């Protein structure tokens, strides 16, 4: 079984596959918090259009990074038993331009645990300077997995980004290996 090595550089996010989280660094189940790393590729075709001569990571994709980070937290909290789907964005602010090659840290915490839904606060910072890039409040519907294919895919993705799913719950691979 292979997974990311502790302390290893985060790989680039895979924009074409819509996989924005590179590595989960912190998963705090009791405090319902998560922190992930995400590295923007140095080069990608989206920068040809966004924008010519002024390459910027699109804000909608930074928002997707926050959504995927929140998603991994919610999946971990429910033991990958139910799938969270983004339902609403509230108060999202895009504060700074983000260039190709930037390494980011995205953090999220659950602010409200509802019946079949949850509300989370998330933010993205530049890893090097900790400068805040964007933040927002996101609402998710949490429903049974629509099929086994998606359930399997999410389990595989969890492992790729450093999670271990077991009968005892969800933890970081790094901790599970100790």
């Amino acid at each position, binding site marked *: 079984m292979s997974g990311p090595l502790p302390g290893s550089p985060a790989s680039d996010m895979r924009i074409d596959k819509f996989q924005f989280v590179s590595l989960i660094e912190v998963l705090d189940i009791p405090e319902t918090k998560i922190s992930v790393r995400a590295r923007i590729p140095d080069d990608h075709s989206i920068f040809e259009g966004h924008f010519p001569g002024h390459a910027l990571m699109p804000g909608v994709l930074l928002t997707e990074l926050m959504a995927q980070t929140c998603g991994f937290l919610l999946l971990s909290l429910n033991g990958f038993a139910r799938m969270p789907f983004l*339902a*609403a964005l509230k108060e999202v602010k895009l504060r700074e331009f983000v260039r190709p090659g930037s390494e980011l840290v995205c953090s999220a915490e659950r602010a*409200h*645990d*509802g*019946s*079949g*839904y949850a*509300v989370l606060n998330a933010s993205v910072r530049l890893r090097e300077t900790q400068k805040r890039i964007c933040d927002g409040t996101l*609402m998710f*519907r949490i429903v049974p997995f629509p099929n086994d294919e998606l359930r399997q895919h999410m389990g595989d993705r969890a492992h790729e980004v450093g999670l271990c799913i077991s009968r005892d719950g969800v933890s970081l691979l790094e901790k599970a290996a100790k």
Partner: protein
Amino acid sequence: MSSTFDTVAGFISEICDIPREQIKPDSHVTEDLEVDSLDFLDAVFNIEQKFGISIPLDDWTQQVNDGAVKGSRYFVLENFCAEVDKLRESAASVPAS
């Protein structure tokens, strides 16, 4: 009940952009007011935050989908508010830890 109804109706009016005077105690959330599920979820979120309660929406929806109860049992506003009041009473009777 009346204060709960006023609060609930206020949230629904604001979130769903429905004139307050159209929202009555005997209004069905979806059939009369045509509130969609996401806006209703948003209203529930605000109600839970306001009153410090957890509304078992999944369980209620399941009961309706299973045919165990009619939708009006929970989703006509006077019945919804009565359930909210029960939840508020239960929350108030639980000592803070």
